[in-house]
């Protein structure tokens, strides 16, 4: 191991091409303590897989932050002699907007371990299952075509992300939750605000945006509460109605339906988890095809490649670079001792380019099969929306390839400096 190994994933260079950084880490120090990130970077496929199954690595990573924040606030209040009742009410409600949003997020199944996770997951899975695939397919195709109609009316250089890849997933989620189409734009705004809060602010300069985001999320909270009340009074075929219904035939798993607080948190989670990730999947897939004209031509020629193509595009340049785990017991990864309280970054984008798992990992092979990529994670936390994400990506990429025969990259894209996601600011193309 060299002392000079590049381990800051947030430099402009690493954001533009993280794969060179991952390559070096995988070869030189596959389970690496990164000073800049104050976390372990796990970059090999085998170690990422082992970490997914390791119960010492917990998903319960928001509650400790929330507890710390509450503790600090209470300490401050005591120091200043303020009464709890004045600051935050004595009914246990969090005081600050930030605490309220963290409280909402701490209820997310994605940051829970079993058994809390198991119950939420079963309810959400049941709701996904209730959505008829053929209906969703037709609905998504219509939405993609509507967005592409608008895109085709424009000319010259246009951003495929803001016009197509970005609006699609928020609209799909709004529809699946049973919200009226006129509220689509609200969903997009809240999704941005959730991302801002969940991924941190990145310094004082963005503190104001952070505050604004928190105010926006209070509106979201109120909106979802209204939607929940509506659906309780008048259930429909949407996912929200499905998650509140009780299933008496299933006594074994106590499918007792979700409380209002849980439903609001679940709506926010589905929006947050399903939006930017899917935008990135569509945009990164399109970029990968634009950079590989032979692959693009092959896909145009033979749309039956789409299913394996989508899996390969997810592997090759997927939407998520890193997911976190919180260490709750001493454990070992590739000979390194990992201690409680430390953080572990599982570098999915690196695992999916590991030559020990994938032949010619840096080659885009639209026929690659089997393709055991980890773009959706693994195990009990594997992305619950994976099938929906696949469907959206397949339909969007398929329609883009078919309907934009003259598609060409107009400018080199700029990548966001984000640790968790692999995300472009814009994808400017001509058609």
């Amino acid at each position, binding site marked *: 191991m060299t002392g000079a190994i590049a381990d800051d994933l947030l430099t402009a260079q690493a954001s533009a091409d993280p794969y060179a950084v991952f390559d070096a880490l995988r070869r030189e120090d596959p389970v690496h303590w990164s000073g800049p990130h104050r976390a372990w970077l796990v970059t090999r496929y085998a170690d990422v*897989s082992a970490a*997914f*199954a390791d119960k010492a690595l917990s998903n319960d990573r928001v509650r400790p932050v929330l507890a710390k924040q509450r503790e600090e606030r209470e300490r401050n209040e005591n120091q200043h002699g303020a009464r709890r009742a004045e600051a935050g009410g004595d009914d246990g409600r969090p005081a600050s907007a930030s605490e309220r949003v963290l409280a909402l997020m701490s209820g997310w199944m994605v940051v829970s371990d*079993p058994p809390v996770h198991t119950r939420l*997951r*079963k309810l959400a*899975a049941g709701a996904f*299952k209730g959505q008829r695939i053929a209906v969703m397919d037709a609905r998504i195709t219509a939405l993609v075509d509507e967005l592409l109609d608008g895109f085709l009316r424009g000319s010259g250089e246009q951003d495929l992300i803001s016009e197509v890849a970005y609006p699609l997933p928020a609209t799909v989620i709004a529809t699946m939750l049973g919200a009226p189409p006129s509220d689509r734009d609200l969903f997009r705004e809240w999704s941005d605000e959730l991302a801002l809060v969940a991924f941190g602010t990145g310094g004082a300069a963005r503190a104001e945006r952070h505050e604004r985001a928190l105010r926006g999320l209070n509106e979201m909270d109120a909106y979802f509460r209204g939607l929940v009340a509506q659906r309780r009074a008048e259930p429909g075929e949407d996912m929200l109605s499905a998650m509140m219904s009780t299933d008496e035939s299933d006594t074994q798993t106590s499918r007792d339906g979700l409380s209002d607080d849980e439903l609001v948190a679940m709506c926010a989670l589905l929006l947050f988890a399903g939006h930017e990730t899917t935008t990135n999947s569509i945009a990164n897939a399109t970029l990968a095809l634009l950079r590989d004209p032979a692959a693009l031509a092959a896909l145009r020629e033979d749309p039956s490649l789409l299913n394996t193509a989508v*899996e390969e595009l997810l592997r090759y340049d997927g939407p998520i670079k890193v997911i976190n785990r919180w260490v709750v017991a001493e454990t070992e990864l590739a000979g390194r001792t990992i201690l409680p309280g430390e953080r572990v970054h599982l570098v999915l984008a690196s695992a999916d380019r590991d030559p020990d798992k994938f032949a010619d990992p840096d080659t885009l092979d639209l026929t690659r099969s*089997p*393709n*055991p*990529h*980890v773009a*959706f*994670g*693994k*195990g*009990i*936390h*594997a*992305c*619950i929306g*994976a*099938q929906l994400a696949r469907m959206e990506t397949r339909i969007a990429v398929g329609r883009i390839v078919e309907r934009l025969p003259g598609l060409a990259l107009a400018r080199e894209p700029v990548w966001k400096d984000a640790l968790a996601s692999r995300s472009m600011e814009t994808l400017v193309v001509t058609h």
Partner: protein
Amino acid sequence: MRIGVDSNVCEAHGQCSVVDMDLFPLDDDGYSAVGPDATVPEGEEDVARIGVESCPVRALSVLEQE
């Protein structure tokens, strides 16, 4: 219809369970708990087929069509 998993091949990707967590249960470690030979309830054959096909390492198979 009957389906089964080859436990030596399963890598705990969990994709089958994303398709249907009742037809394709996982054990505590995320591996398929469907067993070597399970009967699919009538009417759920299509979902079962999608679940089998979703396995990225082909650990699942349809043992018998009906």
